[in-house]
């Protein structure tokens, strides 16, 4: 994950815009196309199987259905030996308290399929896990022969290459998948919301990503390590402090976690919440009541009372970075509202206007009640405070004050509409006064356009609005069932020859290649597009 720049700016992540009439061109072309690969055109008769793969969960199902057949998690129970039934005898690991405090990283390691830091990942073990995971998913839930039909993988558009390579080579060498299509999850989430442009905020496991999509293309992505993993760890620390008593709350920061992961996750999914935003002055009305949660020391028997407001703390401190001044935050650990704001800021103004009224929250964190609303409130506060300008600081503030004074004085003196610009900042200052309250300029072209398509409603733009998505899996299912071809379609034979290195380095392949649906096109080279 070290060099996102070359990955991000390729812009070709979702090539097949749904304009494409897939069926007509395909059938119109079979007579010619059959020379290249006769089987391939008939291959699609079997419904493709769609997998969405993340660090914690796997979703699988058939194309065309709205919800996946199954959601499978990873944990230590999944990597036991065959015939090891301790999970059933003693109860799953991670429910009870741990014998001794564990480092927060080790605590979560058994429960994730991979970490973004691949230096610590044993790829062989990862391959073993993936193989078992897919095999059991097919045998238990999908109930179809593995490898017989096309496979569609929905992956985050930034996957470390060793990971991607391990994943693909495991799947190709273990089963006879004719081809594997990769679809970027951010774009799929937008598709599943019925949108073409969106800001997709994926509050995932290891990191939160905010992806600006415009007309199905990923324009910009920013990421932050403030995500569900650290939230889990924070809640784990909180619960460990409950175990050890409140007295050394301050020094316990770096201590290990002494409660089980599964227990902690259970509490997080049930009771974690997020307070609504309070304005600076007023005190937040804290719900005084308490809730009963299973006792951290003995979850099977006892219950303890915990103030409900405390269960909002991990979310508050980790995801929203409350209590940490913005200047303290490193680049990779910006709070989520800041991340959203920065991503919007990085977008070109037109795209920004479109994206800011199409914000999607996906990923595990999006299920925390109140969080999404809170993030939007924070973002709108940031916009109110700073406008769309990246320039901050006292000096700028002073400068602006001076310009304002100047303007007022010049207005009162000479009725000049604008102060003559002494330095380059002036136009920006003008814009910054309050763009939202200015009367918009009358744009003749725009008006003409409006008049010409009266029946087409004007798209919502420029206001913060959240749209709900059905999730990346549903989006992939939708796209696949519409018979749209993904840009990254990796064929078995080609992959087995050269692996990932066989992909053309062209991030923007020649135009004829992109008329999707045509097998006759030059398919001898394949591309990784956004994943390259």
């Amino acid at each position, binding site marked *: 994950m070290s060099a996102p720049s070359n990955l991000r700016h390729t812009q070709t992540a979702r090539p097949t815009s749904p304009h494409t009439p897939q069926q007509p061109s395909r059938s119109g072309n079979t007579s010619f196309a059959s020379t290249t690969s006769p089987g391939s055109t008939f291959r699609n008769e079997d419904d493709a199987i769609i997998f969405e793969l993340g660090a914690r969960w796997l979703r699988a199902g058939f194309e065309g259905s709205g919800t996946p057949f199954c959601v499978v998690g990873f944990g230590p129970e999944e990597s036991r030996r065959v015939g090891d039934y301790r999970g059933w005898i003693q109860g799953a690991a991670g429910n009870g308290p741990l014998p001794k405090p564990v480092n927060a990283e080790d605590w979560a390691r058994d429960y994730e399929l991979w970490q973004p830091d691949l230096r610590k990942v044993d790829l062989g073990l990862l391959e073993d896990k993936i193989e078992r995971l897919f095999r059991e998913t097919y045998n238990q839930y999908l109930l179809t022969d593995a490898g017989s039909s096309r496979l569609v993988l929905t992956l985050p558009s930034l996957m470390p290459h060793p990971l991607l390579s391990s994943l693909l080579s495991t799947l190709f060498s273990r089963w006879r998948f004719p081809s594997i299509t990769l679809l970027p999850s951010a774009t799929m989430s937008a598709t599943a919301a*019925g949108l073409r442009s969106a800001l997709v905020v994926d509050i995932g496991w290891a990191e939160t990503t905010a992806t600006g999509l415009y007309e199905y293309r990923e324009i910009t992505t920013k990421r932050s390590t403030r995500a569900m993993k650290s939230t889990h760890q924070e809640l784990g620390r909180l619960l460990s402090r409950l175990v050890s008593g409140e007295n050394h709350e301050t020094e316990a920061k770096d201590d290990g976690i002494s409660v089980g992961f599964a227990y902690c996750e259970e509490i997080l999914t049930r009771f974690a919440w997020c307070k609504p935003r309070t304005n600076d002055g007023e005190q937040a009305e804290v719900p005084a009541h308490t809730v009963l949660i299973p006792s951290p020391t003995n979850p099977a028997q006892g219950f303890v009372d915990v103030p409900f407001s405390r269960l909002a703390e991990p979310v508050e401190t980790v995801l929203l970075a409350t209590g940490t001044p913005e200047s303290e935050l490193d680049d990779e650990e910006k709070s989520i509202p800041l991340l959203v704001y920065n991503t919007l800021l990085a977008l070109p103004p037109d795209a920004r206007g479109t994206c800011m009224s199409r914000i999607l929250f996906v990923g595990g964190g999006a299920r925390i009640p109140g969080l999404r609303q809170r993030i939007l409130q924070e973002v709108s506060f940031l916009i109110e405070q700073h406008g769309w300008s990246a320039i901050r600081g006292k000096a700028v503030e002073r400068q602006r004050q001076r310009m304002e004074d100047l303007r007022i004085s010049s207005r009162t003196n000479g009725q000049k509409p604008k102060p003559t610009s002494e330095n380059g900042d002036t136009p920006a200052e003008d814009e910054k006064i309050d763009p939202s309250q200015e009367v918009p300029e009358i744009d003749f072209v725009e008006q003409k356009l409006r008049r010409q398509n009266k029946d087409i409603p004007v798209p919502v733009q420029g206001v913060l609005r959240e749209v709900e998505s059905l999730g990346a899996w549903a989006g992939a299912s939708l796209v696949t069932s519409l018979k749209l071809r993904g840009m990254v379609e990796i064929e078995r034979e080609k992959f087995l020859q050269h692996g990932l290195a066989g992909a053309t380095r062209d991030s923007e392949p020649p135009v004829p290649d992109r*008329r999707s649906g045509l097998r006759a096109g030059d398919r001898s080279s394949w591309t990784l597009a956004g994943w390259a």
Partner: protein
Amino acid sequence: MSRPFPYTYISCPCADTPVPDPARKRRSRESPQKPPPERDTEANEGQDDAKQSADKDDEEDEDEEQTFDPRSPRSNFSLYPPEQLLYCEDCHQIKCPRCITEEIVSWYCPNCLFETPSSMVRSDGGRCGRNCFNCPVCTAPLAVSTIENVTGNASGQGPWVLSCGYCLWTTLDIGIKFDKPTNIRSQLQKMTDSTTGPAFDARSRQGSRAFGDLKSPLSNFASIDEQANPSERDTEQSTSKEDQTPTPHLGAEARFAALKNFYRTQISETSNSPSDPLSSEFGFSSPGALNRLMSLYASSSRLSGLYGGTKKTKSKPPVMREALTASEGLRIASGDADSALVERIASPDCGWDGVASLSQRTEQSPDVRFVDELLPLPVLLRTKRAKRCKSCKHILVKPETKPQSTRFRIRLIALSYIPLPTLRPLAQSSATSISGLAPAPDLNALSPLRPYHVLLTLKNHMFDPVRITLATPSVTPGIVATKVTVLCPQFEIGANSDVWDEALQNATAPLSDRITGMRGGEKVPEAGKVWEKGRNWTTVVLEVVPGTLPGSQAEDGQAGNTDIAATFQKDEDVLEIPVFVHMEWDAEAQLEQQNVGKASKPDDLVARELAYWMVLGVGRIQAAL
């Protein structure tokens, strides 16, 4: 550790052949800065490319000769109980679930044992389509019973409910009653349909699919059809709009159907324009549209070149738009819903048990959050699968199709080819010589640094005698260094001849066996000698000296043992011995492998060998000395 001690596991040899990554070779050549993870600890930054690849090769060679480590996390994926392994007669190799391919023979419900035809599996969602349900709260099977039964007075008539015999959950808790006790699945589907919105059940989904099929590929070029289609669709859409406006929140499935419908409409509306420029509306031609046009023209007349159609693109095609109304699948989030959720979670009448747990939630539709939203789960179907060898495609297992039958037409299990290992501790005669019957040592608490004797019996199921060579690292891998010695590493196991043959030939043999068995307590294990031998089995002795646990050393007051304690894994105190088994036997050459000329000699023998690692779980080492 998984089973009661002692136990044996066999490692499938496929673990030695890693997943071939075609790119790996090239990758290492291209980017030497990415060493494989296990090499990170070695400081080899300054090495040049060639040397690196060279020592990588060395390392791979070393890998082949490395002893198997039962504690490595990867070994969990290659170790199998001996009875779960298969054997391919053509490859002469052990086959584990990873090196076979599976084909589904039949689908059936494990609850009612009805077979489901393959055409119905998909539409039923891979679940039983009849009356079999699992409790959404505790996953116990649900029973169909009348309300009277549940409430107490039995009359045998009236509305029916599903009730859980374990946690006493009934469908009444979620307000669902059934009119008749049969076909519960479809009744339930109808009910959830009406509550979550239209187009939920499989039938209407199939309907929409059929509708999509109507649009045959060829007809898309004929503009007349296309002219007719959108108008049809418009009317349909408007009617559906009317249907859906009263239900502001569609369920996930309904929303998906709405979205799908919307995209279909959009695609067909935007794709008919090139043939009919008059109907085109104004719009910005997105690059996608451009490409599509180009491809259309390029495919119809290739000679005109790739950009032959550029002239035509002036007629602006309509753009696809995004979904704008709820009936098109758009859903704007409302903040009130979330705050209501928070209030509900915090309210005392919800509590811990009111919120669905993680495992309950994963089985349900993604929106479910509370226990009273859980729906009964139709039982997942199971399959009977035929298994083939992955490399040679020969069938290894073929079950009968009928769900009720447990018979197999073909089943090549590994135990009929490889010797079955069993392990048993030898009673410590020396320690407790006073009493005649020496107690077997407690395997769950082996005391460190004290020699134990373990009897390893290998039982041959083949009709040929087998020569076995055992090898084991003298010190087990891992933190706890246990010394292991196989007292008799080379021995022979007799053929699995007919039991009666043996009995008739030398009737005294079993008796003498029994006598030696009786005398077992007095016998002393000797190096180089087989402990016991029977018709088709042989027992040898392993001497094991368990090492000390790092935790027990902490009592000595050594510094720096916290590091050891930190790395001390959970099952580190389990004593597992990796043993390499090499077996050789002379098999009768199979017919298909013989030459035609040799076929006349049926008794010519082929030497065969097989080698694999197995893991013997002896016991758990005590912490204290």
